[in-house]
């Protein structure tokens, strides 16, 4: 007998679900990805610590591309639209996503920003995530690739301390390299750490200040754009670059 209202016996049943808890975010990310692929836009989820130089890197990217690439961006920020304003001044049409207390962007926020967009046709769309080496890594936004900015001042052991973030990365940009002569930083130690957390470790040393390495970064973007076109022409072979993670 039910001990609350006497409505009769209750039966215990087990419902097997075996679904990712973030399946709702994954579905929205897949929707975003379909938008990007249909428009032929390379979407980059740019992540990194606060102050790792994400915005400065995008400003340098705009300078170095010299208008040859049509760039757009959304910038996630807890409290201000400063990064988006900087990018707009640098010639990258941008929109701020002010997250309030949320420490990461999710696919729904990016989707809302996409539908409220000041840009036209684009070659590369940067999703500048909230500065944070933890939370952004687990939310698929629909990007074609994840890029992590790591400043030389952050410490050589950052990759092995934050393996979830770096395992997600398709590319690491080692930023502020103009400071290397003034620091006791062993770049080889950073590379060794990356090799232990990234299955295909790829790192480019850059300086937004001097422009060092920005050409290599633009070449990487060009290669990813070319791969995007190949995939768009062969949809049967297409697979999300960062789809839902392994479900055990």
């Amino acid at each position, binding site marked *: 007998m039910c001990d609350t209202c006497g409505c009769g016996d209750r039966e215990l049943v087990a419902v097997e679900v075996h*679904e*990712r808890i973030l399946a709702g975010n994954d579905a929205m990310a897949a929707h975003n990805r379909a938008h990007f692929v249909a428009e032929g836009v390379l979407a980059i989820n740019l992540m990194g610590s606060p102050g790792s130089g994400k915005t400065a890197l995008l400003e340098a990217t705009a300078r170095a591309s010299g208008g040859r690439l049509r760039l757009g961006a959304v910038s996630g920020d807890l409290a201000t639209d400063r990064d988006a304003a900087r990018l707009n001044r640098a010639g990258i049409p941008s929109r701020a996503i002010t997250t309030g207390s949320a420490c990461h962007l999710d696919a729904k926020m990016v989707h809302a920003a996409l539908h409220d967009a000041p840009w036209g046709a684009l070659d590369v769309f940067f999703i500048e995530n909230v500065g944070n080496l*933890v939370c952004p890594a*687990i939310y698929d936004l629909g990007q074609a690739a994840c890029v992590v900015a790591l400043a030389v001042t952050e410490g050589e052991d950052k990759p092995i301390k934050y393996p979830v973030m770096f395992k997600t990365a398709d590319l690491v940009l080692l930023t502020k390299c103009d400071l290397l002569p003034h620091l006791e930083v062993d770049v080889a130690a950073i590379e*060794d750490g990356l090799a232990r957390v990234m299955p295909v470790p790829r790192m480019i040393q850059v300086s937004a200040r001097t422009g060092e390495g920005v050409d290599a970064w633009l070449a990487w973007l060009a290669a990813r754009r070319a791969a995007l076109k190949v995939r768009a022409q062969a949809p049967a072979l297409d697979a999300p670059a960062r789809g839902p993670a*392994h479900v055990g």
Partner: protein
Amino acid sequence: MHEYGIVAALVERVAEEAAPRRARVRRLHVAIGELAGVDVELLRTAYDTFRPATLCADAELDVRAVAAAWSCPGCARALAPGAPLQCPVCGRPARLTAGDEIVLERIELEVPDV
């Protein structure tokens, strides 16, 4: 602290199963991988904070922690924890075979026997 967002998604998914059955939720079983980016203790705290006002108010949270496992996709050799993620034999990039789960596995419900 994305654990609250995960708990909100979890409770919403559980409600989808429980509400149409007019069921009481007794226990949730989730799997959290070592490389999932989710702190199990923070998840428990978030769940305990969030659940009183939900269908999961009386439901225990059972967390299965899953260790990270990397292996070679070519020769299936398992890599030692912390080792470089290239197969020492054939040189291929390793693949994560377990450890990134954020999964709702099972819900135990008490349903009216009608």
